[in-house]
Structures are given as C-alpha cells and as structure tokens.
C-alpha cells in the first residue's frame, strides 16, 4: 500500500491520539507499531490527568488537553475516574506558596482551591499528621492509559487506518521501510517516544526510568490522587535519581504508587533499592500504606527532550517528517493536545495554542 496521507510511527498514547484525530479529520493513515498497543511507556504511566503550574508552555498544553479529555469522561474504555487531585503541603512554607500556584493555574483556566489542615484531614484522614494543608484540584481525573490507547487505535482502524504490526527499519525519502521489508509512502509522524533518536538522531531523547507499585484492593483508604507539592522538584530537577510522593486510588480500589525518576538506568529490571526509596517517601505522607499488600511492581522509561517540553512539529531539516514525542511524565495528560497541535500544522491550520515552545527546531539553538 502506498500514498498515505500520514504514516504514524508508534501506537502508545500519543500515537493513538494522533491516529484518532488524523482519521477523524479524514486522513488516510497507516499505523506502525512493533509491540503491544499502549505497551511501552504508556503501560507504565499513572494515567493522571493533571495540570502543573511550573512551566507556562507545559501548562498551556496541559490545559488545552484537559479540555479535550472531558469528551472521555463517560467513555467506559477510558476508565475515567474524577477523583480529583490533592497537592499536600508538608510545612508552612509550602502552604504559603499555594496562592501563587492557584493564580497561575487560574490564568490558564484550571480551578484550584487552597485547603487548610482541618479540611485536608477531613478529606483524607489517612494522611500523616503534621501536614500544613494543601491545594485541591477537584475536577481532575485519572484514566487507564493502555485502554485509552487501544480505543484510539480501534477508532482509527474503524475509520480505515491500516495497522502494521512491525517496526520501522529506517526513514527514507518518501516514506518508511519496515523491518519486515514492506515500504510505506507518505508523510511521517513519529510518535515513538524513547525510540525517536533511532530514527531521528538529531533529536535527543533521554530515558528517565520510573518505578510503580500497585496494591491489592483496599477501597476507601484514599479518595484523591495525592502528591507532595515538592513533586515538581523531582520532575523538573536534573538529579540522577529522585523520588516524590504520588499515589492514586484506582477505580478497582487498588492504590497505585509512584513516583521515581532515574537517568542512566540501563535495564527494565525492578530495582529493590529504588522501590525502598519511593516507599519510604510514601510512608512519610501515608503511614497506613505499610500494612497494605503490593501485588505488582514494574518499571517504565519516560522519554525526555532537551528541555523537558515535548517535540511537537516538523522534524528539523525534513519537510515530510513530523514529531510528537518526548513528553517526560505528562504524556497521558498532553497526548490529546499534542495530537491536535501537530496534525493541525500538518493540515496547514493554525493550532489552538502557540506551537513555538514545542518546535523541534529549537534543538539546533
């Protein structure tokens, strides 16, 4: 088959969002994926749809995406659960900084409220004593990313997309050569996350390993996704390794525990030492976790760009190669907005938000 309007490489949450949107806009597309749909970083994502105020460009993309996520609120396939987010302040200093965070979020249309310690413990009685209060974003939700990715691919296929269970061997002048020998022609959109540099060496992507723990079913222990306000320091920091308190109540009643970040880890093996660090941190905020059983541990690699913002746009030096990749820990949240930002550009339309901060060409400078 040749002459696609678009060849999408990668069927993770970003590739699936791209495939879904592209076909909805009437494009004839091919999807190329060697593994399981949503089986890469997508399967190691927490699925938390969250706005963080630390970087304006990140916030703009997140806010745009969160609006798009509302369409999934009643879709069973997304397993959308509006548990809300509760950022926890460990001390008065953190508590004092909350109003400016609320203001930054409000400027982007995200509604958050500061809550005092009394309200904090009323909402989440299991939290460790001595916390100062927190910031609640009641409208935020969690999803199950592999199911959303699968849904996006299914939608695309239903609209005529051709799915190739294969890997791209290399990019060529007018399309891709697959490992299985087949050639597909057409413009290309690389949504293959951590594997991006294998096809585009000029766009650096570092891999940042994360660990996850999921417990057996203990409904009611927590109600919101709980994070420490210091989470952004871990996410945006450059430390070789860091952990931050981040736990989520799954609709099943299980508790999903993150988060850890490590550069320079070479394998997918679970590191018991990282698990210890991550859990030690969690126990400080949620002592009750100690008594619960973990039934699974796993890892994933977040793809990280040169500056932490995703690459969304035309690949440097190639007219017909586009990129939607390197989302660090916000791939799920910003998948929907990313798809539109890139595909609107491919279709020659102005995206809803300014695409400049995510332009892959920024790497040159």
């Amino acid at each position: 088959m040749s002459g696609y309007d678009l060849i999408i490489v990668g069927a993770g949450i970003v590739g699936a969002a791209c495939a879904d949107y592209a076909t909805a806009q009437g494009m004839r597309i091919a999807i190329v994926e060697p593994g399981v749909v949503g089986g890469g970083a997508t399967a190691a994502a927490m699925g938390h749809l969250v706005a963080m105020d630390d970087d304006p460009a990140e916030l703009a993309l997140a806010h745009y995406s969160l609006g798009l996520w509302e369409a999934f609120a009643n879709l069973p396939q997304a397993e959308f659960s509006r548990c809300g987010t509760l950022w926890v302040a460990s001390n008065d200093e953190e508590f004092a900084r909350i109003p400016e965070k609320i203001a930054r979020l409000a400027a982007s249309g995200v509604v958050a409220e500061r809550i005092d310690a009394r309200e904090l413990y009323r909402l989440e009685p299991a939290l460790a004593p001595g916390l100062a209060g927190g910031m609640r974003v009641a409208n935020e939700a969690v999803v199950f990313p592999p199911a959303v990715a699968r849904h996006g691919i299914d939608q695309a296929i239903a609209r005529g997309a051709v799915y190739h269970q294969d890997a791209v061997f290399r990019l060529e002048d007018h399309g891709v050569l697959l490992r299985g020998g087949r050639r597909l022609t057409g413009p290309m959109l690389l949504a293959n996350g951590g594997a991006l540099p294998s096809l585009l060496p000029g766009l650096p992507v570092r891999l940042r390993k994360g660990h996850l723990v999921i417990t057996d079913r203990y409904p009611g222990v927590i109600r919101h996704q709980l994070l420490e306000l210091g989470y952004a320091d871990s996410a945006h920091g450059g430390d070789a390794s860091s952990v931050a308190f981040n736990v989520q109540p799954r609709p099943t009643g299980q508790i999903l525990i993150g988060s850890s970040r490590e550069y320079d880890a070479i394998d997918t093996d679970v590191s018991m030492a990282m698990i210890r660090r991550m859990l030690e941190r969690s126990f400080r905020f949620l002592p009750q976790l100690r008594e619960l059983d973990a039934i699974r541990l796993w890892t994933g690699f977040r793809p990280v760009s040169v500056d932490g913002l995703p690459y969304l746009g035309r690949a440097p030096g190639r007219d017909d190669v586009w990129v939607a990749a390197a989302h660090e820990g916000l791939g799920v949240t910003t998948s929907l907005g990313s798809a539109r930002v890139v595909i609107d550009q491919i279709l020659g339309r102005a995206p809803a938000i300014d695409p400049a901060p995510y332009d892959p060409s920024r790497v040159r400078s």
Partner: protein
Amino acid sequence: MVDACDIVVVGAGPAGLAAAEAAASQGKRVVLIDSQPRAGGQVWRHDVLHGQPRVATDAIRDVAGNANVTCLEGTQVVAVEPGRLLLQDAQRGFHLAYGALVLATGARELLLPFPGWTLPGVTGAGGLQALAKQGWPLRGKRVLIAGSGPLLLAAAATAQRHGAHVVGIHEQAGASAVHRFAAGLWRWPAKLAQAARLRLELARVPYRTGSIVTAAEGEHGVSGARVRGRQGDERIACDLLAVGYGLLPQVELAQLLGCALEPEGAHARVQVGPWQATSQPRVFAAGEACGIGGLDCARVEGRIAGLAAAGAPVPPTLVQRRDRARAFAASLREHFTVRDDVRGLANGDTTICRCEDVPLGAVRPHADTREAKLATRCGMGACQGRICGSALAELGHGPRGGTRPPLFPVRLATLGEPVLSSVSDTRGYTS
C-alpha cells in the same frame, strides 16, 4: 537467631529437608524457609488427624534438632537482590544473605477451567488433599475426584480417611495407558507397593478410566458434576468436586534469580546439571521444581543439592539413585498427558482469570499474555497469573511470561523498610 548463614534452602518439603540435612551434616550453617505454617511441603503436609508419615517426622526431626539449621516456617521469599533474599513472615520483612542457595520450591497443581469450576466446593485434587489435611470438614460429604495421574488416588485416600464418601475417581487417561503405567511400576518397587496399598484402601470406590468432568453444577456451591465417560454422559451428585490434571514445577523464584529453565510440556522446569546446579553460580535446585518426579526423586535430589551446595563430593551411588527415580517422572509424563478434549472444556464464557473475573472469550483474541493483560486485566490479580497463566499455557495460548518481583503479594512495609536480619553475615562459605 543465628548470626551466620552459609546456605539458604527455600522450601521444607522432602527435597528441602534432605538438602538442609545434607548441608548441615557438612558443617554448614543452614536456614530452611517454608511459607506454610509447618514443614513438610505438600506430600508430607501435616495432617491434623493423622500427623505425618514416619519418614517425614524423621526428616523433620533430623533438621529441627540440628544445631546447624534454623527453620523459618510461615516465611515467604518475596524478592531477590544480589547475594540476598527479601523475606516476609507474619510480623516483619527482612533480608537474608546467602553464600549458596538451594531451591526446593516444589510443584503446584495444574488447574484447568471448565464450566462451573469457580463454584465453592470445586477444588483441585491435590487441593482437596491439602484442605483435608488442614482440617476441612469432610465427614459424610460426597466427594467426586477427577482429572489425571496418581495424585487422584492419593487425594481420594486422604479424603476417605477424613470420613468423606468418595463417590468416584475419574481418570481422563484411557484404560490401556493406565495399565501400561501400572505395568511399568515394577521398576520402582516402593511406588508399586504404594499403588497396591491405595487400590486396596479404595477398593469400594468406583474408578473409571477414559472419563472426564465436563462441568460443575450448583447454585451457591457445587451440587453435582457432569461426567463424560466411555458409556456416555451422566450427572453425579456430590458435595465436593476435586479436579486436578497433575502437577507443574514452581519456577518463579528460579526465574527471578535468572536461572535457565527448560520446557516441561507446556510449562517449565529449572534446568540443572548432574549435581543439581542451576545456571546461576551457587544456586542449586532439587525436587519437583526440576521436573515432576515424585517423592523419591525429591529426597535424593535434595541430598545431592545439599552436598553440592556445601562443596562436598556427591557419591556416584546417589546420582544413580536419582537417575532411576527420574525415570519414573518420564513414565508419569508419558501416560498422563492432558487430552485435547479436556483443553476444550472451557467455553468463551468460562472464567479464566479468577482474580479479576475475566472470561476466556475476552482473552483468546490477544496475541500474547502481556497484551491480554493490558486489555482484559487477566493476570493482574493477587495470584499474579499463576492459576490463569498456567491454565492458558496448557490450553495452548503461549507460555507464561517472565517473573518480576514480588513473588507473592507482599506488605509494603517489607518492601519499604525491611529489617536487616542478623543472619545477614555470610562469612564462612567458599565455593
């Protein structure tokens, strides 16, 4: 509390007990671990009414009374790190460093899905035996036993000794296969004698070959089974239905340690050399984990592994005994292979993943177990895919995947704040 440990033996069944005794006899400090409340494993499980066979109590006494051995019952291995294990008991999680390791993790039962298999009162055949020995009320209950292999007879005998009325034993293998197996037993006199004893004990119990349970029926619990035999189909009323299709090796710990495995039918066993060494340095394995071979295999392999782990020479006579015992394993495999129609009993609506209530029909379209897991939740539950994964492997849906920690559901406190056990010092062992 011991303050030094040379060898950790995981599993206190016949193989583990033999390994611990052998290693201790060489002067090594041994820690013997078992997840059950009492040592004995499955075949030597302590029976609340009848205790344990003499040979079992002797083996346990030899080990318990040995100053070189510390027994940790009710303790489970949950993860591994270089040179040490992460363990958990009812109170705490702790590390245990080892100089050498003997894996005697035994076997579990092959439990295959069929309509109604999730009803209360449906158990494995070995499952029924284990429940009976731990005091499950069986007096006056009608029990139907089905599936495959000599375990059916052992389970029936145990049930009967606990006062159950065994209404029938239904062996899926045909009469000629069973006769050929029995005829070959002369090579293992102890097995022949055991078989004869069992047949006598079960003289009143109908024993059918070429017969399978196709469904369990009942409202809130099992009340009967549909059985398909050579004469056709019938319904047999029962209060308990015990169905097991033989045993498979428990290799999860070996896999986590990176030991090479080799196929055992649709499943896997730990690959070992002539002295029970695995592919990992200083890790040995013995007994059912190395392939289903029965009690005598386990005892002699445990002894070999214990000696080898202790760096002691292994007498050639032991190796010869082991080889002879292993031949019995081959005979078992040959005569009791699962029939195709047994594999086809489950339909699309039959639950395959009991932990997450996933029907077989939801899982079948997926190319591999990982894809099925992400799409259906099959294998995401507390049993970590042991039941559904082994069943799917037997049904031809592909092998079970790799193993990640934790090996069993584990308290977060164990993962997050393990105590350093005072047995963490491994001085004294050299390979």
